[in-house]
C-alpha cells in the first residue's frame, strides 16, 4: 500500500485542477468496480456491489484535491504574486517549493520583513521561478500550483505534502480492492474542491441521493509540543468523528461504528474537532437529508507541506471499512 500512497501524494492536484490525480485513481480502480464515471464538476464516482434486501445505498467520499496557490500578478522582474487555494498559511510557505499544473517550478520567498519575527500575510510573499522579466516568466495570472515535497517513509510514520486527503483516497482504493462481498450498493466518490468549501460533495450527494454518507478524511491531533488540546493522537487508531465545526455526526451511525470497531477489536478513537469540516457536512444536508458521519485518519501538521500520519492507523482504517461495509448496517 505504501507504493500506492507514494504515487498518490506526489501528484499535483489543487482544488479545481484534479484531472491528473483523478486519472491516476481511475486507472487504479477501473478493473475493480462495476462502473466509474466523472460528473459535471469532476468528481470521480465508482459503483461497487448490489443492494441486497437489507442493504443501503452508501456514499463514501474522499477528496482528490489539495491546497495550493494561484498566481495573481507577474511583476516587471518576473516574480509571481499569488493567493491561496484553500487554507494556506504564510508560516508554512516561506522557503517552500511549488509545482505549477503546467509544469513550472519555483520557490516561495518573502519581502524584507519588518519586524523580522512577524509572520507576514500572503500578499508579502512571492514565487521565484527563475524568470528575469514579465516576458520570460513561464507562469500567467490564473495559473495554479501545488506544494512540492517528496514522500517520506519513516517506518510507522509517513510524511507528505498532501496526506490531506490522499491518504483517505488510498484507504478507499484499498477498500475497493479488499472488499469481496457487501449487501450494499456502494458509491466511492473521489471528490473535488473540498478544500475550498466541500463543493464537489454537494453535487455528488445530490446526484446519488444516498441512504447513508461517510466521509473519509484526516483530522487534527493534540499530541505535539504545546499543541491544541485534543484527544486524538497518532497511532491510536482511526478516529470516529462525533462533531466538527460543520457537522454533528449522526449519533446512530457513531454508535454503529463504535460497536463494530469494538467487536473486531480494531483500535479507534473518538474525535471532537473544534475547527474544520469534511465532505460529510455537504452530504448530510443534501436534498431531504442524509445520515452522515466521518472516519478520520489522525494527521499532524495538516495544511503544511509535511503532513504526518501513522501507517498503522491507515491500515486499521482499511480493516474497519472492509468489515463495516461488508455486513448489514442498522441505525437504531
Amino acid at each position, binding site marked *: 500500500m505504501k507504493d500506492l500512497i507514494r504515487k498518490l501524494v506526489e501528484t499535483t492536484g489543487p482544488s479545481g485542477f484534479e484531472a491528473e490525480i483523478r486519472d491516476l485513481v481511475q486507472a487504479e480502480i477501473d478493473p475493480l468496480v462495476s462502473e466509474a464515471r466523472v460528473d459535471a464538476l469532476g468528481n470521480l464516482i465508482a459503483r461497487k456491489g448490489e443492494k441486497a434486501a437489507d442493504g443501503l445505498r452508501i456514499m463514501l467520499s474522499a477528496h482528490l484535491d489539495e491546497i495550493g496557490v494561484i498566481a495573481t500578478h507577474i511583476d516587471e522582474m518576473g516574480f509571481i504574486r499569488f493567493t491561496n487555494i484553500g487554507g494556506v498559511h504564510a508560516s508554512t510557505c516561506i522557503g517552500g517549493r511549488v509545482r505549477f499544473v503546467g509544469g513550472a517550478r519555483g520557490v516561495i520567498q518573502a519581502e524584507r520583513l519588518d519586524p523580522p519575527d512577524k509572520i507576514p500575510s500572503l500578499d508579502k510573499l512571492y514565487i521565484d521561478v527563475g524568470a528575469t522579466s514579465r516576458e520570460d516568466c513561464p507562469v500567467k495570472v*490564473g495559473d495554479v500550483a501545488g506544494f512540492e515535497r517528496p514522500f517520506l517513509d519513516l517506518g510507522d510514520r509517513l510524511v507528505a505534502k498532501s496526506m490531506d486527503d490522499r491518504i483517505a483516497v488510498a484507504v478507499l482504493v484499498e477498500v475497493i480492492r479488499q472488499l469481496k462481498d457487501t449487501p450494499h450498493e456502494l458509491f466511492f466518490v473521489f471528490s473535488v474542491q473540498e478544500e475550498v468549501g466541500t463543493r464537489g460533495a454537494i453535487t455528488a450527494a445530490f446526484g446519488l441521493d444516498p441512504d447513508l454518507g461517510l466521509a473519509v478524511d484526516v483530522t487534527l491531533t493534540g499530541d505535539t509540543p504545546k499543541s491544541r488540546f485534543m484527544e486524538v493522537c497518532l497511532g491510536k487508531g482511526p478516529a470516529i468523528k462525533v462533531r466538527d465545526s460543520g457537522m454533528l455526526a449522526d449519533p446512530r451511525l457513531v454508535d454503529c461504528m463504535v460497536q463494530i470497531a469494538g467487536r473486531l477489536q480494531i483500535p479507534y478513537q473518538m474525535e471532537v474537532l473544534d475547527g474544520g469540516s469534511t465532505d460529510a457536512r455537504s452530504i448530510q444536508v443534501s436534498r431531504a437529508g442524509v445520515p452522515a458521519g466521518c472516519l478520520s485518519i489522525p494527521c499532524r501538521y495538516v495544511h503544511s507541506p509535511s503532513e504526518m500520519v501513522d501507517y498503522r492507523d491507515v491500515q486499521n482504517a482499511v480493516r474497519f471499512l472492509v468489515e463495516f461495509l461488508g455486513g448489514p448496517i442498522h441505525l437504531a
Partner: protein
Amino acid sequence: MNPDPRNAAPKIGAEQIDLLEKLCNACAVTGDESEVRAIVLEEVRPHAAEVKVDALGNVLVWRSGSSAEPRRKVMLAAHMDEVGMMLVMDDGDGLFRVETVGGLEVRQMAGKPVWVGREHIPGVIGAKPIHFMSGDDRRRAPSLESLRVDVGSGSTKARVGDRATFATRFQRIGPSLRGKALDDRLGVATMIELLKHAPPNVDLLLAFTVQEEIGLRGARVAAYTFDPHLAIVVDSTPANDLPAWDRSENTVYNCRLDRGPAIYLADSGTIADPRLARHLLATAEKHGLPYQVRQPGGGSTDASAIQRQREGVPSISISVPGRYAHTAAMLARLADWENTLALLYYTLTDLTAEIIPLSGNGAK
C-alpha cells in the same frame, strides 16, 4: 442575405446606451427589483419563447436554438439588484434612520443625495458641515447610527421599509459611462442584447436574478429551475487600477479599464470550469478581442450558487470592469462593454458539443 452569425457580434449603439441609461436610473435595491424587472420584461418578451417570473422574482427566459441537435442548454445570469439602503426608523420631521443593504461602506454615504422608495422621492443623507467638526470628527468615519436620510419636512410619502439609492443620473462621458448601478445593469443590458441576437446553435436560458448582493440567493433557485448544461455569469467587477501614490507597481488592480472583458478563473466562491476558461480565452484570441484575466482572489458572483446546484453545473463568470464599485457612481468604458458583449456572443456561437461533453467526462 443574413450575415454569417459567426462573424457578426452585436454592437453597442445609441439604442443600447439608452436602454442602459433607463436600467441604470431605475432603482432596484436588493429585495425589491420590480422597477428593473418591468423594463427587462418589456424588452425580452418579443424575443423569448417563454418568460416567467419565479417565486423569488427572477425573470427567467427560454429561447431555443434552431440548429440541429445536439444543442447545449446554456444558462446566462446577470443580477438586477443593486446595493443601497433601507429606511428603518422614522425620527419625525422627514428624518429617517437608515441601514445598508449589501456591501455599502458608511464612508460613502454622508452628504450624498438619494432617491427614496418606488417614487424616487428626493432626499439627502445629511452630513455634518465642516464648521462643526472637531479634529476627531475629521479623522474618523461617521457611524451609521449617526446618519439620517432627510427627505425634507412635510413629505409624507417616505416610510420605514422604503429602500433608497444614491441619486446619480446615468451619464455618458466621451468613451466612458457613469452611473449608480452599472453593477450589474451592464450585465442585464448585455443579456438583453444577446437575446435579441440569439445564436442558433444553443438553447439560451437567461436568468435576470434578484438578491445577488446579499448572497446570490436568486441565482440559486434559477439554476434549479433551468438545470442547464453550463452557465456563464455576466457581472461587473471593480477595477482598482489607479496608479499607486508612490509610483510603485500596482500589483492589486483586480482588473483594469480599457483592457477588455475580465475573465474569472477563481474567486472566493467559484473556481471556473477549466474547459470553459480555455474556451473563453481561445475565443477572445481567435476573434482578436481584448481581454484580461481578473486577478484571482476574493469576491464572488452568481456562478458560485449556480455551479453547485443539483448535480453540478460547469460555470464561469465574465465582467465588464468598472471603477468605484458600490459607491454613488461607477465609471466604466463603452469599449469594454462592447467587447464583453462580443466575447460572450462568440463564446456562444463557437460553443461546440465537445467543449462540455454531457456524460462520463468531467472537468479536465
